[in-house]
């Protein structure tokens, strides 16, 4: 990146929630960090796209039972989707509260988003436990390998996100609303929203076509 990004008005923002900055130096540091985080998000997106491609290849070449018709249950996927979609909205409210310096809003909305994420993980855990009980484990066939790999990687990301969010809340609590930690919440919200986009791809590619077959 070159320094041509700065103009007389200060710093032009990268995509993401714009925050008010106390000075141009802080603004510049925040925007550089946000752009770096976008590079990570895009590389993560490439990983998920390839996991879904792997799933499609393994599904097509799958020769032994069980297939999607016996394994996929929308009874889990649908409430999981609603929880994740809603948590994206509530985390947005947290960043809006941060922008307007409403501390209680930041704590409350962030915590609610993490609780919804934890609910998503609980449902996914129940789904996976049910699969294990029926013997639908990854090593059975190609379809199950791809299924567990793609959905498990997303679930792992959500779990890391929940831990990250709790650490952020603790940092706000201990250090107050200083610029460094404010910019961390912006990056955390980008991460969380991107995981929601990945989940849209997962239910569009894996759950819904899989349940159509039945």
């Amino acid at each position, binding site marked *: 990146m070159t320094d041509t990004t700065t103009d007389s008005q200060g710093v032009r*923002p990268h995509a993401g929630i714009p925050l008010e900055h106390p000075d141009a130096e802080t603004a510049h540091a925040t925007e550089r960090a946000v752009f770096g985080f976008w590079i990570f998000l*895009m590389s993560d997106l490439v990983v998920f796209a390839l996991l*879904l*491609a*792997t799933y499609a290849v393994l599904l097509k070449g799958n020769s032994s039972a069980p297939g999607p018709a016996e394994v996929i249950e929308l009874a889990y996927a649908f409430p999981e989707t609603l929880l994740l979609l809603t948590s994206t909205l509530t985390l*947005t409210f947290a960043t*809006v509260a941060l922008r307007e310096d409403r501390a209680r809003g930041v704590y409350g909305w962030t915590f609610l988003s993490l609780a919804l994420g934890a609910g998503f993980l609980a449902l996914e855990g129940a789904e996976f436990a049910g699969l294990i009980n029926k013997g639908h484990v990854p090593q059975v066939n190609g379809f199950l390998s791809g299924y567990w790999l793609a959905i498990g990687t997303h679930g792992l990301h959500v779990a890391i996100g929940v831990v990250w969010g709790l650490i952020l809340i603790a940092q706000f609590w201990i250090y107050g609303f200083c610029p460094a930690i404010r910019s961390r919440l912006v990056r955390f919200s980008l991460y969380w929203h991107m995981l929601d986009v990945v989940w849209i791809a997962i239910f*569009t590619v894996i759950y819904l076509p899989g349940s159509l077959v039945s």
Partner: protein
Amino acid sequence: MRRVDAIHLAGYAASLALTLAAFGIAKFGWLDGTIALVAIGLAGLVQAAIHLRAFLHLDFKGSQREDLQLLLFAAVLIAIMVGGSLWIMFDLGHRMM
């Protein structure tokens, strides 16, 4: 209502409607066969685009040139690697039949 809240609520409502439509097609068989698959795929694409605009605030008017270049680069990478993998592996599968 503040503009920043309006776009989030509109994005959430549109996203919810598309989710319900896609799950409805799969659950209740509103459409069948290839048409159902195409409809679900389109709903997913539109929903992902809505999320990028409403929640990730991708907006090329206000953002920097690097953002556009980064996204295009990632899109090209995904198109080459995903498209190429599916093409080669499905062709291979076809030849093995």
